[in-house]
């Protein structure tokens, strides 16, 4: 039963990880990375490593994707103050 759960979670991690590598649009890639973080946290939980699961769910699923989203938003912005005012 435990092995079945771990096997399913391993497949989930592999699936979401492949999605990160295959998605071409950065926004979708960030979402896939967040899903991968959640899957990894669940796997760590199933492998009885709750300390690592805590860190993974907070950093991998929330904090890191947020920073990537912010970077994407920043890249799309016109950094030139004059240009931004003209918009």
């Amino acid at each position, binding site marked *: 039963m435990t092995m079945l759960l771990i096997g399913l979670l391993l497949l989930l991690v592999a699936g979401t990880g492949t999605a990160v590598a295959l998605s071409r649009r950065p926004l979708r890639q960030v979402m896939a990375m967040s899903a991968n973080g959640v899957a990894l946290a669940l796997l760590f939980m199933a492998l009885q490593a*709750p*300390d690592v699961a*805590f*860190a993974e769910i*907070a*950093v991998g699923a*929330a*904090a890191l994707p*947020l*920073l990537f*989203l*912010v*970077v*994407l*938003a*920043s890249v799309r*912005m016109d*950094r030139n*103050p004059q240009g*931004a*005012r003209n*918009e």
Partner: protein
Amino acid sequence: MSPRPRPERRIAFAIRLRLALFALAGLCALGGALHVAGRMPAFGAHPLPYGDEINRRGVPERHVTNMVSAVNFDYRGFDTLGEEFMLLCAVTGVTVLLRGTRGEARSAQPGRVEGRPILPRSEATVLLSRVLAPLILMFGLYVALHAMTTPGGGFQGGVIAATGTLLFFAGDGYRGWRRLIRSGAMDACEGSGASLYALCGFASMALGLPFLENVLPLGTPGDLFSGGLMLVENAGVALAVGGGFVVLFIEFLEETRVEPPEEAPGDAPGHATGDAPDGARS
């Protein structure tokens, strides 16, 4: 003149060449990989003795029931010191880099984006985030405080609390979040947490003991305040990680704002209170 098809053909050839090289390398590595995979220990088997030894000694020696914390803060406390200062260096580097290009003075006042529409938040969003944020902050505190008894610790608790503050951003907008979470206070949290950890080590040295050797009473195992000096180190880590992550969030999110115009200080604050929504998603 035929410059057009040539680069395309060259690119197609390059892709085919790379795929062929990849297949060749894969074939070469396959034998070795299969050999290693066949001789790996069984899933879940841990042939090294350290884990069992720590589990056996942790409670009688360190009066701590969470062995991960015992390893992080005591048996391998020096490694955690290195990690703490690695985080401090990373956060400092990001802050210097981003604040440097924006100007030092700007970290005190949040910027805003002129062209971005101000979407009203639904009252449900505001209410939900205002109710949930304190709960998540409390959960972060709980995880950080119970480092010695249950899974979790300063790092995990600090990150949970730092991420929880972002709910204020979701509910009350960027300006509300920045008004609540002071950049200067978070800088101080980050620095003082890391130095608290280092000072724990020097406290042991001042008493003639090795660096980071426990000098406080260990308490009873399973008690919230067990573990002696590990508790102080854990508090330092929680402060440093929580403050460091919030500083990171502030510095990164400030990058999605444009500089307020020069006449901003004399500006009426009225039009700025309804804040632009999350820049990352609009």
